[in-house]
């Protein structure tokens, strides 16, 4: 299992890993951070709404609106 230095990255990863699996969880987090101009190591509390929104958008295609919203709301509660 992947371990991040950044506590937010680790918490987000812990939420999405059981659903997405290791490769996809890592890939999604990296892709969405890149699209926000940050990296997994520089995530701050203020980035969480944007990351959860991006991840929600990314996961809709696999989980539908309801499923992806459920994941996004968990990230917002970190």
């Amino acid at each position, binding site marked *: 299992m992947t371990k991040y230095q950044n506590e937010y990255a680790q918490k987000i990863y812990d939420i999405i890993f*059981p*659903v*997405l*699996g*290791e*490769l*996809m969880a890592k*890939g*999604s987090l*990296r*892709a*969405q951070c890149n*699209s926000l101009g940050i990296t997994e190591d520089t995530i701050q509390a203020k980035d969480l709404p944007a990351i959860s929104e*991006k991840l929600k*958008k*990314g*996961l*809709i*295609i*696999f*989980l*539908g*609106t*309801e*499923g992806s919203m*459920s*994941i996004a709301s968990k990230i917002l509660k970190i």
Partner: protein
Amino acid sequence: MKKIKLLWLFTALLLLVNVIVYLTASEKILLYASDLLPAVCSLFAVYGIYYAYKGFKSYDFVKVAWLFILIGTILDFLAESTYGILEIGFSMDMNETFPSLADIFWCSSYIAYFIGLIMLFNGYRRSGLPLGNIKIQALLSMLYVLLSVVVVYFLLIPIIQDGETEFLTKVFSLYYPIGDIVTVAMAIILLFFISQFGSGLITMPWKMLALGFFFFSVSDLLYSYLSWNDTYGSGNLIDMGWHLGYLLIGISGLYQRELVDSIKKRRTL
């Protein structure tokens, strides 16, 4: 998960029966088997995809994409049933009766599948998820171009150049391989996207769906080639590709539902 295991077991059993019957049965039994098995398999595809469709609560584009795939499977089931009824029930020579009502259903199913798959494809592109290694994309594109050239050279050009075939027969004979080439492309793209993410539950619906369409379309292309050259007969082993294709499409639906339900369970814990 129990349903998925049962369907995998059913798939294995059905393919085993398929091989035994096709290798040992008399011509009459072969005719019945080659008309009944696709109808049964396509019905399972309808069931699996319907089950996935019902799992989505919100009427978003994902649900609509699965709805189009469901419509495609229903049209395929209607086509397989119609073909069987015409051949067994009305003793029609289906090689002479081309195109038939069954062909109308089959041709319509391509459109439904195409819309469903293009929606999934566009949804993925908009998702912001990685689009994959550009070198592998280039390699796959080259392989695909090669396949297309083979199909055009060995199938499409001979059909176009044939002077004895009627216009309508030509149109339908060209429609199938062109539809298959497009479907293979979509299947390869979906498989490529999802193969970046390992082997978790989230990857299974698309993997099974893409493999299902791949097997189905390759069998269809081989059928078109054999049929055009008058070398296809009932009970040909390439039928297994269709059967496996339908069953994998059905299994993809069960995996999709399993995935959506697993999120619901996690939420209620």
